């Protein structure tokens, strides 16, 4: 047993750190740290920076632009990216659609769509959830009917993250009503500039616009945009859901957030002493810090198992549950640390170029909105309840 990285891995780690130190604008890192989204331009510029370094799609096959890194190297890259508060490439194209295309797409589809992801031509979003089909995805009702060389799509998708920036959406649509609900679903690539596509914002409880509803009214989609076979889309969707996701443990993001929390709590006063010395608050922070040290090793154990050829299955569900709970807890502690200053609602104070006077400690305006926003972690990406169902079934065999 040896928990340290090899010299090569350590060297790689330093290479990643050096890259971020040299290439990541501090203003971008600040926005990530405070949980404040990037503009579309900023996001695209950052992705171009990563692409130039060759690190935009580490997990893709080398022939398509991947890096050929080991599981451990990928883990190190993810971790250091979080510790640096680096923006992440928008996952929908790079991490979700691409693996499906690589496995089930035609040669023509791969050659067309993958390079366009790399050069920034397309911004993809995901069309899975519907108002009546959340965790129960197979209940989806959006319908595609074959008409000549097109499908005609009608229906509604929801919770579409950053759909306001996207020009393309990959969507699950119903093409057949006979048989089991999971049969008769197809996987379509839809151009969002087509007539009949409407994007409506959903404002989240923190006042932010991150997710959307997408309406399809008689939208025509060329049959060439069907991935794989008609009516077999459920298989492809499921493949995507089991795709490796140790990053769900959010170790890097929690580590960065905890460090910031401690510096905040060291400066806040309670009864004439730093809040960090208050026994109950210190105990809360210590609990989170210990959980995080444990989680970091749990995540590494899963990575090592994958690197050793093991299949990550329900383990990633365990990481997801614990990782999201912990990340939420750290954000709740930051809110708690602010005391009365958790109350002001000043989204403008987070904008670049804000030159008003802040209320409370630096960056206080970000804390409660981020706490509220991160409630999503245990809901989206397969709710933690669904993850516990998976653990019960797969590991516990109950």
């Amino acid at each position, binding site marked *: 047993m040896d928990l340290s990285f090899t010299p090569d891995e350590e060297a790689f780690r330093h290479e990643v750190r050096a890259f971020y130190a040299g290439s990541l604008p501090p203003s971008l890192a600040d926005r990530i740290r405070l949980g404040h989204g990037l503009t579309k331009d900023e996001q695209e510029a950052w992705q171009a920076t990563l692409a130039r370094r060759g690190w935009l799609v580490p997990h893709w096959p080398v022939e398509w632009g991947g890096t050929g890194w080991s599981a451990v190297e990928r883990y190190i890259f993810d971790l250091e990216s979080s510790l640096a508060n680096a923006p992440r490439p928008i996952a929908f194209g790079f991490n979700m659609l691409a693996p499906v295309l690589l496995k089930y797409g035609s040669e023509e589809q791969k050659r067309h769509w993958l390079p366009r992801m790399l050069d920034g031509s397309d911004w993809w979003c995901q069309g899975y959830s519907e108002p009546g089909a959340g965790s129960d995805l197979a209940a989806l009702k959006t319908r595609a009917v074959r008409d000549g060389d097109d499908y005609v799509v009608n229906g509604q998708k929801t919770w579409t993250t950053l759909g306001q920036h996207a020009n393309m959406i990959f969507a699950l649509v119903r093409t057949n009503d006979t048989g089991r609900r999971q049969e008769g679903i197809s996987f379509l690539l839809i151009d969002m500039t087509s007539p009949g596509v409407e994007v409506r914002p959903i*404002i989240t409880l923190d*006042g932010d616009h991150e997710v959307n509803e997408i309406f399809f009214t008689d939208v025509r989609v060329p049959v060439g945009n069907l991935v794989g076979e008609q009516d077999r889309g459920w298989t492809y969707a499921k493949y995507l859901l089991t795709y490796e996701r140790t990053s769900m443990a959010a170790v890097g993001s929690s580590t960065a957030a905890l460090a910031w929390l401690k510096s905040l709590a060291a400066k806040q006063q*309670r009864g004439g002493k730093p809040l960090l010395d*208050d026994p109950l608050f210190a105990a809360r922070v210590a609990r989170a810090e210990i959980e995080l040290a444990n989680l970091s090793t749990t995540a590494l154990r899963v990575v090592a198992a994958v690197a050793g050829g093991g299949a990550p299955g329900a383990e990633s569900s365990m990481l997801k549950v614990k990782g999201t709970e912990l990340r939420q807890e750290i954000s709740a502690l930051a809110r708690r640390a602010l005391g009365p200053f958790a109350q002001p609602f000043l989204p403008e104070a987070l904008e670049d170029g804000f030159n008003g006077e802040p*209320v409370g400690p630096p960056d206080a305006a970000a804390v*409660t909105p981020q706490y509220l926003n991160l*409630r999503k972690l245990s*809901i989206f990406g397969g709710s*933690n*309840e669904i993850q516990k169902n998976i653990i019960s079934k797969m590991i516990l065999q109950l």
Partner: protein
Amino acid sequence: MDFNHTDDRRMLADTLGRFIAGQTDPMARAEAAKTAPGYDPAVWTRFAELGVIGALFGPDDGGFGGGGFDIMVVFEALGAGLVQAPFLSTLLAGRALAAAGGRADEIEALIAGTMVIAFAHQEGGAGYDLDHVATRAERNGNDWVLTGSKSVIADAEGATLLLVSARTSGEVGDRDGVSLFLVPVQASGLDVRGYPCVDGGRAAEVRLDGVTLPATALVGTEGDGTGSIADAVAAGLLALCAEALGAMAVVRDATLDYLRTRMQFGEAIGRNQALQHRMAALLIEIEQARSAVINAAAALDGPGNARERMLSAAKYTIGRTGTLVAEEAIQLHGGIGMTWELPMTHFAKRLMMIDHQLGDEDHHLARYAALSRAA
């Protein structure tokens, strides 16, 4: 032993409930927060006409209530309606004035709804420590000159006066040497910078830069403000706890409705036993919270240590349970629970923010333990 409210209080609750149901839209709260004063003055006048403000004060002060259960009835109804109006500010300032004595005119104006007085006690470096007063008041001839700042002061923009605590002797953290002053919002050297709050309503940062006041601005006895502040905060703690009870009931019912009606995998999601058990646990905690508030209301007019202990017990319970209820409700709602347009989420945010007013659960748990040792 009788757990029913008196007929008078029941009538007040009914009237208030009907009025609130007809007047307010939870979503309007967030909208109103964008501009000062953060609430509808016409509605405030109507509350006064209905006698709701008077219910918060005792007959000696010109009101017709003022007991713990009066405060409980009013604020529980306000919480159930997510009402945004300067009730808490009025209660805090009014109770402090009443405790200090000699301000019958101002209290009468408060009860009539013709004047709002903000309770400008809290300071930025204080956390939740009531004795942390760094703002200073110094004599200049017959005048007082106040210098310092106050943080997250609710309703300061719409107020006629601010009730400001300032130190006339001693050091930051001392119990003694704090005095109360009534400061007109137009006073020269006074800066009120308002902003909206996460849960609706508005608050402000207040700066006093050599604000000069006549001798008559001093409320009560010089250096003797701490007791009045404690009395005000005691009533305020009960009010916040009762408000949370009202909000929790709404969140609970909305969540139950959702569990009963939202279909997934062919059945209502409330059929999931794991969710049922969580909801059952939540229900137990909510009942415990109600008991905590009843205990606090009963203790409000009683002797000091027991009163303070029961208030801290209640605020601790409400802080812990309110956050739990809010977080669980959002989680059990799933995606829709993350949206601004769902009224429930605004009640949930109010519950979360109540833990940041007048001391959070850790503060009151530690305070309870210290009071228990002293008892």
